[in-house]
């Protein structure tokens, strides 16, 4: 019979519509525009609708997700102290050469200091490879999770300078809890080993 194949196909669509409504009733509460609902629709046994209404809902990103680097700073007496020592390893390993660093100088003696005066990343050149975060010996540069960076002015908004790049260590701990815990553990071990060595000498 002509049209049978199309009717069969439409039946599949109809089943999805009905499934969506029965799932809504079964869930009992509103399962849209909240995190639980998005997670429920991501599971392997989800039925009915499984799309995400993007600007209102967002898929949770994995911890290892990386998008544009940022600099980590520690809060000390209300002062922002960047972990960065301006060693320049990140700008050397960067395959697209999008990192520029200027080392700070002591205003009186003119000696170079272990802190950056300027730090700029051109995010249009950055290809999010994550090498800078991987090879940084001080855990000072990390990859961000914020992927909504569209703007109208490239020169104004797509070159991130140090004031925009600096983000607190607490932010880093929030977006990458497992990595942060591992790093803290490694740091504590290193400290303990140093203390041990000082005692023996």
């Amino acid at each position, binding site marked *: 019979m002509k049209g049978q194949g199309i009717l069969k196909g439409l039946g599949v669509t109809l089943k999805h519509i009905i499934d969506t409504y029965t799932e809504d009733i079964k869930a009992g509460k509103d399962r849209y525009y909240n995190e639980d609902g998005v997670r429920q629709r991501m599971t392997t046994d989800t039925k009915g609708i499984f799309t995400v209404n993007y600007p209102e809902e967002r898929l949770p990103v994995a911890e290892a997700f990386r998008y544009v680097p940022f600099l980590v700073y520690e809060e000390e007496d209300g002062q922002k102290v960047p972990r960065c020592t301006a060693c320049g390893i990140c700008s050397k390993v960067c395959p697209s050469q999008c990192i520029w660093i200027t080392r700070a100088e002591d205003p009186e003696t003119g000696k170079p200091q272990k802190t950056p005066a300027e730090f700029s990343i051109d995010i249009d050149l950055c290809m*999010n490879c994550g090498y800078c975060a*991987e090879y940084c010996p001080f855990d000072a540069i990390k990859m961000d999770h914020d992927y909504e960076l569209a703007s109208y002015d490239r020169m104004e908004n797509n070159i991130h300078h140090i004031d925009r790049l600096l983000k607190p260590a607490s932010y880093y701990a929030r977006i990458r809890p497992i990595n942060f815990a591992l790093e803290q553990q490694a740091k504590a071990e290193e400290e303990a080993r140093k203390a041990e060595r000082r005692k023996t000498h």
Partner: protein
Amino acid sequence: MMCNYFRFGGVVRDLPEGLEEHIRKLVYERLPRQVDEMDRYLVENEIVVSRGRGVGVLTPEQAIAYSAVGPVLRASGVPYDIRRADPYGIYDRFDFDVAVRYHGDVYDRFLIRYDEIRQSIRILQQAIAGIPKGEILANKPAYRYKMPKGEAYGRVEGPKGELGFYVVSDGSDNPWRYHVRAPSFINLTGLREMCLGEKVADLVAILGSIDIVLGEVDR
């Protein structure tokens, strides 16, 4: 995406917690179920059948002459898959069939993708059962490797066909020449033969059935 995940001597980081269980559920439950559903929705759909059957035929001889690869070649009746013809990686350990269809028309090129999805799920089911424990990166990570002088060609069976990389080194740390054999670009060269004698309206269906990636076509 797996961008920058593979390294010389391993991978950059371990799998996240709980991913193995998630993949297991995907390959045993969700994917087979969804593929079967798409099957019900499209394979016998009269519009797909009438627009696809007998349209844009590429004979096996033409497919070989145009160096077509992947699903385009296999839909024309040539059972050639690099995973079977020249096994690389661990593909010799997996039990899978090389999908092949014999008409070489748009409809067969559409069907062969279903066959290949099913075979891929089979491979995934075997792969997830045998992930070994151990070190994730065997050697010290480095962002720059000293390469000896010489040239090399490596190829894999990508979703569109044979994906090859030809590298010539002059001994420095960057390649002296680097060429990608992109399957989409080479499959596209057969478009003329497929289109001869067809209606203009069928061009879209034929072009769609080759399944090109424009990033690969731009050489």
